[in-house]
């Protein structure tokens, strides 16, 4: 339940309790998600009960204490429960468990221009909107000129708001909202209003508000604003408070979290794209070129076209991946990581002592490195039709940052002809601080000593 108190009737509470503006005590909120689009009486009567639903825990045991005069920011990814928390504080919805105590008059800016009617003029809407936000008519009368001046809509104030642009609409809404003057202000992502100049004005108002010792709780994705304005920040994730404390700490932790999510998303995209390329381009471009001379093959072009895949096909490279030390498949690695490039080979005929190789090229097709088991003095063995093997090349990453291409190959014992060669089958992404140039990090130790003169 939500308990609203005026300062004067808190008798029993301790001194420390009194300067608390908003006290959220282990609040949970469960939503019901109905499987039916529009609830109807007909269905209820036919089934005898309301439609089936799933429960969704939007907030899970959240506690938050905000003292008078504090500016608290709430950040978190979409769907983390930020807006639900604000709605609970403002009393729009009721918590499933726990309680929220509010001390002092409060106003919630969850939407600008709420209740504006398109047919009414700007001035008429000011009165309605102000009343909705809990402002008395005589206060509006007093502040009317101020509100209109702030919105910069003097010329259009007697025009119906249906003729307003969306910017004008928001400006009028914001202007009314900031003149309500509550002790506690809840703000949900509404500061991004109007042009630069108007935004500056909005921030000034918020600063003034803070200076006067008012309490502000602000939800925003604008992390710079949050770290600028707030004295404390809570990081919400999956309906739980993940972290709270000093704005800079929390914001940087949140940034790291967002980056990780973004990175994962990119990697997932790349993985999907690569799968696609492997399926279509490489398979289609496959050419059976049996018994060709290596000299001809190594310039990688037939009829002026770059050849992506060639070989007799007696052995086939069926897959490639990069794994880390723990065997986990990865899509990028950092300088210094130990990685393994693995590819799978399926033999379609008997092949004796095949040469299993890998080539790493950069985006300009410069060969960065290439090797095979023979050069490394590793015996490969003899394989019959139907045999499957996995070849691993374990490296320590000494490359500079960037994207590199991997080309695996299976060659015949004669070192001239190939069973299967796949160009640019996979890419290797290396992350590096790039505090150097070139393709390879030689990690020098630099010493500078003054030499004696003469």
């Amino acid at each position, binding site marked *: 339940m939500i308990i609203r108190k005026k300062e004067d009737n808190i008798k029993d509470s301790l001194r420390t309790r009194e300067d608390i503006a908003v006290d959220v005590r282990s609040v949970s909120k469960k939503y019901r998600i109905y499987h039916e689009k*529009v609830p109807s009486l007909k269905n209820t009567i036919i089934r005898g009960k309301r439609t089936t639903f799933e429960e969704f825990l939007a907030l899970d045991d959240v506690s938050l204490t905000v003292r008078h005069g504090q500016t608290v920011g709430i950040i978190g990814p979409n769907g983390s429960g930020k807006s639900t928390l604000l709605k609970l504080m403002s009393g729009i919805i009721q918590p499933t468990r726990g309680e929220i105590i509010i001390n002092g008059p409060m106003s919630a800016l969850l*939407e600008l221009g709420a209740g504006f009617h398109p047919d009414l003029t700007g001035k008429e809407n000011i009165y*309605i909107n102000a009343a909705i936000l809990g402002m008395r*008519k005589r206060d509006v009368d007093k502040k009317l000129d101020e509100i209109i001046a702030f919105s910069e809509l003097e010329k259009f104030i007697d025009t119906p708001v249906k003729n307003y642009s969306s910017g004008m609409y928001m400006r009028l809404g914001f202007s009314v909202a900031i003149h309500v003057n509550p002790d506690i202000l809840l703000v949900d992502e509404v500061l991004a209003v109007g042009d630069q100049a108007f935004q500056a004005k909005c921030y000034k108002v918020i600063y003034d508000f803070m200076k006067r010792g008012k309490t502000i709780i602000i939800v925003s994705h604008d992390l710079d604003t949050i770290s600028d304005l707030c004295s404390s920040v809570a990081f919400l994730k999956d309906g739980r408070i993940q972290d709270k404390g000093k704005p800079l700490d929390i914001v940087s932790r949140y940034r790291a979290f967002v980056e990780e999510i973004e990175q994962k998303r990119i990697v997932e995209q790349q993985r999907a794209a690569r799968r696609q390329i492997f399926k279509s381009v490489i398979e289609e471009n496959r050419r059976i070129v049996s018994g060709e001379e290596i000299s001809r093959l190594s310039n990688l072009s037939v009829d002026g076209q770059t050849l992506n895949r060639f070989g007799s096909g007696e052995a086939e490279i069926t897959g490639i991946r990069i794994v880390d030390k723990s065997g986990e498949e990865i899509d990028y690695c950092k300088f210094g990581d130990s990685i393994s490039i693995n590819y799978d080979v399926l033999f379609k005929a008997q092949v004796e002592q095949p040469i299993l190789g890998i080539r790493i090229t950069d985006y300009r097709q410069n060969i960065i490195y290439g090797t095979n088991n023979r050069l490394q003095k590793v015996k490969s063995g003899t394989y019959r039709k139907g045999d499957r093997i996995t070849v691993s090349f374990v490296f320590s990453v000494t490359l500079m940052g960037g994207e590199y291409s991997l080309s695996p190959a299976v060659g015949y014992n004669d070192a001239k002809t190939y069973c299967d060669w796949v160009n640019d089958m996979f890419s290797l992404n290396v992350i590096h601080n790039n505090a150097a140039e070139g393709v390879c990090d030689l990690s020098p130790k630099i010493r500078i000593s003054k030499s004696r003169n003469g």
Partner: protein
Amino acid sequence: MFADIKKLFSYRELLISLTRKELKVKYRGSALGFFWSLLNPILTMLVYSFVFSIVLRAGIEQFAIFLICALLPFNFLSNSVNYGSGSIISNSNLVNKIYFPREILPLSVVLSNLVNFLFELAALFIVLAFMGYKFYLFLYILPLLIFIQFFLVVGMTLLVSALNVLFRDLQHLITIVMMVWFFGTPIIYPLSMVPEKFQPYIKFINPMTIYASYYRNIFYYVKYPENGGFPTVLETVTALGITILIFFIGYFVFKRLEPRFAEEI
């Protein structure tokens, strides 16, 4: 309940403001403004007058006046219920974004219809005065009568506006129920025309019968006292009891469902 009334009182300016908005929006964009709202009852009156005094020849003197005295209070009820039923749903942007006592939304619809009703009555007074009706004889009953009917209207409107959030197809049902209610109330016919054995049902189940009878006695039967006669004490008390019952049902259903509004719309 007292806490609710107290809270509602602290939000009175919002209630007034929204009522004003309802009225303004209704009459904005038409040069004749308020007079449009009179057009509807006048046209209804003309149609029924044509049917009942020219085609069917029911033999009721001054049928137009006879009809309008009961039609206006019933319109107050039916307009409030019809418009009020959607008042929560259609204001979803408010309900979702701002806290205020939700009963303000249906109440503002009822109040704007009340204001309308009062203007219509004022217009009716002018007509009656011209036609030599001594409508002022029993006029002292009118404020109390409107006050009591107001509770019936509020109860019904609260009930349907809250249920409509949970059952969106209620709207269709409401239209039908209001039509049945209209014909089940002696508006286009006098109660005396109803067969004896049905009269108790109409009188004791439907409080609007009693209120319509009061309105008609105040305005119309002052000229034809031999046909009229105020409802008995028993009838009045029953109507009052049902009104209070409907008011509390509406109120408690509304309060019970109120916390779910923001989630359901």
